[in-house]
């Protein structure tokens, strides 16, 4: 028997396990998933928690119900990967040998890497919503907050779900308007980018939406430190933005195991080929999802599209064939814009988000780079799709390669 070991049973690891079990002959291959967490969170739901739209129970399920029958699951933390020996040591002292390793360890916030961010105001007036604890603490804070300077800040890229900070900002505008205290809440969006978003067309569209909603934007701001005494954030050049409530999207890092095992870049993301998803150092190591250093979004839809091509490459590798399947950087995100509306963007390494209809020309039904109600329902529907299709590695009627159908170019 040979071992295919998956480290990480989150969105990407779970989807891959479900996909691979269908293709690997069970008399020759054993799939082993290493995942310590017992709960699986629907992470897009973290955005909704601070505003009371969802509760923790509504976005949590036991992790084990999504793992395929026939796979071994080890509830333990990995201590280190010894890639030269094809061996993984676990924190409980055991070790596991692998023939093929799939790294799906994701990304995490590292607020401790910015001076003052995890200071005395942490979870008192400084919050994150990228963890369940942070999102819940913020929900409690918002219940009684009477207003002031609300600052939403991205410390630096890359971050998970790059559209979430904007969605949070749009939701905050709606939330405080409905509460009747919008005029007492000054909302400022502070970003390291030169506009609301990275790619030109989407940035222009989203920037004008911020303006329409009376949200200030501060650009080119790289967070250097948080001054807890004077309630200010400062960039490395000394620019200051005062806050009464800071919603931070801290720096992101890969799993500490990656750096410890010598497989990552300086932030702990696995160095991988951006098309084949194979590690640049070891041929029998592959990576999927947020754990890689690929220049693609760190998002669930990306992991889904990657899974489509990666299972082919893993099978090719096992059969000593060249890796032919190629990931194009495809990403597809619903962006909530508040008041029951949303927009949709669809793009890849080469093509920026464009206006048009998706997935079909004329019929849509979703509109690209344009607000609509149906896009919002698409986002809500996605929760069902996530639990029932995406995690189970099932087929979705959206090809993994980005299509130009329905898109309008200049």
């Amino acid at each position, binding site marked *: 028997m040979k071992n295919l070991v998956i480290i990480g049973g989150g969105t990407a690891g779970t989807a891959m396990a479900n996909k691979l079990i269908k293709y690997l002959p069970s008399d020759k291959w054993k799939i082993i998933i290493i995942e310590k967490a017992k709960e699986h969170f629907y992470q897009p739901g973290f955005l909704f928690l601070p505003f009371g739209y969802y509760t923790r129970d509504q976005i949590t399920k036991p992790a084990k119900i999504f793992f395929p029958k026939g796979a071994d699951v080890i509830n333990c933390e990995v201590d280190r990967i010894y890639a030269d020996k094809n061996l993984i040591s676990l924190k409980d002292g055991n070790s596991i040998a692998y023939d093929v390793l799939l790294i799906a360890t994701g990304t995490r916030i590292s607020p401790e890497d910015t001076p003052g961010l995890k200071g005395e105001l942490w979870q008192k007036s400084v919050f994150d919503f990228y963890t369940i604890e942070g999102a819940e603490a913020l929900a409690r804070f918002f219940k009684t907050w009477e207003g002031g300077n609300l600052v939403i800040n991205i410390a630096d890229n890359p971050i998970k779900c790059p559209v979430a900070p904007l969605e949070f900002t749009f939701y905050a505008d709606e939330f405080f308007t409905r509460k009747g205290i919008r005029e007492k809440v000054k909302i400022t969006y502070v970003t390291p980018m030169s506009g609301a978003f*990275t*790619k030109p067309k989407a940035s222009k569209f989203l920037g004008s939406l911020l303006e329409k909603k009376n949200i200030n934007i501060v650009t*080119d701001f*790289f967070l*250097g430190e948080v001054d807890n005494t004077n309630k200010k954030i400062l960039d490395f050049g000394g620019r200051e933005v005062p806050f009464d409530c800071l919603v931070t999207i801290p720096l992101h890092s890969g799993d500490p195991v990656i750096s410890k095992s010598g497989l990552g870049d300086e932030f702990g993301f696995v160095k991988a080929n951006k098309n084949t998803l194979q590690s640049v150092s070891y041929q029998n190591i592959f990576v999927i999802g947020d754990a890689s*250093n690929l220049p693609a*979004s760190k998002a669930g839809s990306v992991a889904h599209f990657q899974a489509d091509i990666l299972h082919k490459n893993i099978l090719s590798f096992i059969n000593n064939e060249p890796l032919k399947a190629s990931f194009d950087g495809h990403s597809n995100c619903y962006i909530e814009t508040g008041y029951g509306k949303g927009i949709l963007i669809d793009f890849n390494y080469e093509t920026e988000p464009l206006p048009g209809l998706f997935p079909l020309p004329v019929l849509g039904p979703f509109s690209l780079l344009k607000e609509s109600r149906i896009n919002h329902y698409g986002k809500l529907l996605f929760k069902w799709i996530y639990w029932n299709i995406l995690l189970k590695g099932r087929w979705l009627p959206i090809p993994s390669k980005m299509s130009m159908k329905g898109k309008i170019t200049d």
Partner: protein
Amino acid sequence: MAQKTYAGKTVDVNEEGYFTNPSQWTKEIAAEIAKEEGIVLTDQHYAIIEFLRNRHNSGEALSIRSINHSGVIDVKTFYQLFPGAPLKKATKIAGIPKPASCI
């Protein structure tokens, strides 16, 4: 596609003045672009420019964060060397594309 002349050489640039062909770059050209930005290049400037160019050539993404890991200078010094928007200015002077943070 626009062109600009620096130190007697014609180079290809985009609408924002960033090089579209990094191989056309020379140290002398860098000094002239820097002058436009109001910066006089020192050895420290050249050290970080070399780091940025090497990193770009190896296909790795550039970010403010990566400067702290460069082993050349820290981010605060980077801001002092290229005041305002250091990464944008430094990449322009280094003759490489403006870092587009991937999403």
